[in-house]
């Protein structure tokens, strides 16, 4: 359907359809973020022998996040007097817009996806890099030492971990022969890449947690050292935008992990009577759960250890993985 739309002549109706679909996706993502945060808090509570949210919206705390968002909406919007005003206002927008843009190429099932472009994988990596500029800008514009340190850490961390992230995916690209996410899913019809590329999967998981700025790599916003890092001066809805972009990236990263390593919407043999969307949802939820699990169980790294780990461990291992994959592929091709 989207493909026909893309090839048709531009008109107000087309614009309306696009706009409507994008708004629909935005609401789906907002719904995910609302209940993603709730489930994260519930899982954290379960792992730390607490109950978690249990007051608003019945026994399960189902309206807790809704109430939190409402609180953020009616909070006073403060802009520090000495802040760099235009950049301070622009920064949350720069941070959030790419987070929503990356969702455009992600294939959820073979029918439900927005754009099928040849370089989908690179698109994700490139666009998500723009968010870093938003974070660095926020840190700078707040005119606060904690924010600036947080912004600097974010820049250093994101540049360092983007490289192993991309390098770990080269193995998959070698095996598939394409950067198109649909082709990558199609190549996993028989065997998922998590079994063919286990090293790449581990590197990808570590680097993706670092890219998401989550514990144990949450140095840009380490609350015990930097108060709240780059968004310490933000309040109300501007702050909500940073939070939102973080969770939308989590959604996107869990989707990407599913698509790249867990076979996307492909089913396990003999169980293919279950619809594709459900398979996707199951795998997605599993990845989401692992991300929360990592957050609850690991302590935060020190800044210098973080850099050393990225450059001296992850990058060489990722390069070795590329080399190994290429050799094995050639040997298999010989027979």
């Amino acid at each position, binding site marked *: 359907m989207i493909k026909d739309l893309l090839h048709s002549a*531009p008109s107000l109706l087309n614009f309306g359809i696009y706009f409507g679909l994008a708004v629909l996706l935005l609401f789906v993502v907002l719904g995910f973020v609302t209940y993603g945060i709730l489930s994260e808090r519930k899982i954290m509570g379960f792992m730390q022998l607490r109950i978690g949210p249990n007051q608003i919206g019945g026994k399960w705390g189902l309206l807790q996040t809704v109430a939190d968002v409402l609180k953020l909406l009616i909070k006073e919007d403060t802009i520090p007097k000495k802040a*760099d005003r235009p*950049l301070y206002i*622009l920064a949350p927008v720069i941070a959030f817009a790419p987070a929503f843009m990356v969702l455009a190429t992600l294939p959820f099932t073979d029918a439900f996806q927005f754009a099928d472009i*040849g370089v989908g994988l690179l698109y994700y990596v*490139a666009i998500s890099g*723009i968010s870093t*500029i938003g974070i*660095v*800008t926020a840190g700078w514009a707040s005119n606060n030492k904690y924010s600036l340190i947080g912004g600097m850490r974010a820049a250093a961390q994101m540049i360092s971990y983007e490289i192993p992230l991309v390098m770990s995916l080269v193995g998959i690209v070698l095996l598939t022969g394409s950067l198109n996410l649909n082709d990558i899913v199609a190549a996993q019809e028989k065997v998922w890449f998590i079994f063919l590329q286990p090293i790449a999967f581990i590197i990808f998981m570590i680097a993706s947690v670092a890219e998401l700025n989550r514990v144990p790599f949450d140095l840009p916003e380490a609350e015990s050292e930097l108060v709240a890092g780059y968004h310490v001066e933000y309040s109300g809805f501007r702050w909500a935008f940073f939070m939102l972009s973080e969770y939308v990236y989590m959604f996107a990263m869990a989707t990407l992990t599913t698509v790249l390593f867990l076979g996307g919407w492909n089913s396990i043999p003999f169980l293919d009577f279950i619809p594709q969307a459900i398979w996707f949802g199951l795998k997605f939820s599993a990845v989401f759960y692992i991300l929360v699990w990592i957050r609850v169980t690991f302590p935060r790294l020190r800044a210098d250890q973080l850099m050393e780990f990225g450059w001296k461990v992850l990058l060489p291992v990722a390069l070795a993985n590329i080399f190994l994959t290429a050799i094995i592929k050639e040997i298999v091709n010989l027979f």
Partner: protein
Amino acid sequence: MSVSGELIAFFGLALVAILGGVLLITLTKVVHMVIALVFTFLSIAGIYLLLSAEFVAIVQILIYSGAITIVMLFGIMLTKHRENDEPAKGGWQRFFLLLAIAGFAVAVYLGIYNLDIPVQPTALHEENTKQIGIELFSKYVIPFEVMSVLLLVALVGAIVLAKKDDEEGDRS
């Protein structure tokens, strides 16, 4: 010339690109300039996309607006610098500058207006990532390898320079 979606997109992107460039010159704070530059880079990537050069567009975003800008911001924020640039000089100099710019604009306009590019159908837009890869590793393999050696030399040089600074810092 009929109005198509492509034309509208092109005008939007071109406007943002030029606006970013103008802001880059007129703004006074260095960090603001870099942000303006990001918008120029992004809209140029958009123009590449319109020309169906998707690989180049993505690499443009990845390298220029992602990596290079962040390194620039990093450098600006870590070093001391004057908050504002000095104001431009006035008087006759400005007038001649305007004249020179106008002359340049006229020359470029005439040049482009009379330019006639023969159009021939090509298949360059189909799977251009694959085509770039094949060209790079068959026809241009030697320049490609020389390039990598050059980058390696730059990398080693940077490490040597950084290391030297460190040792001097220890002694003092």
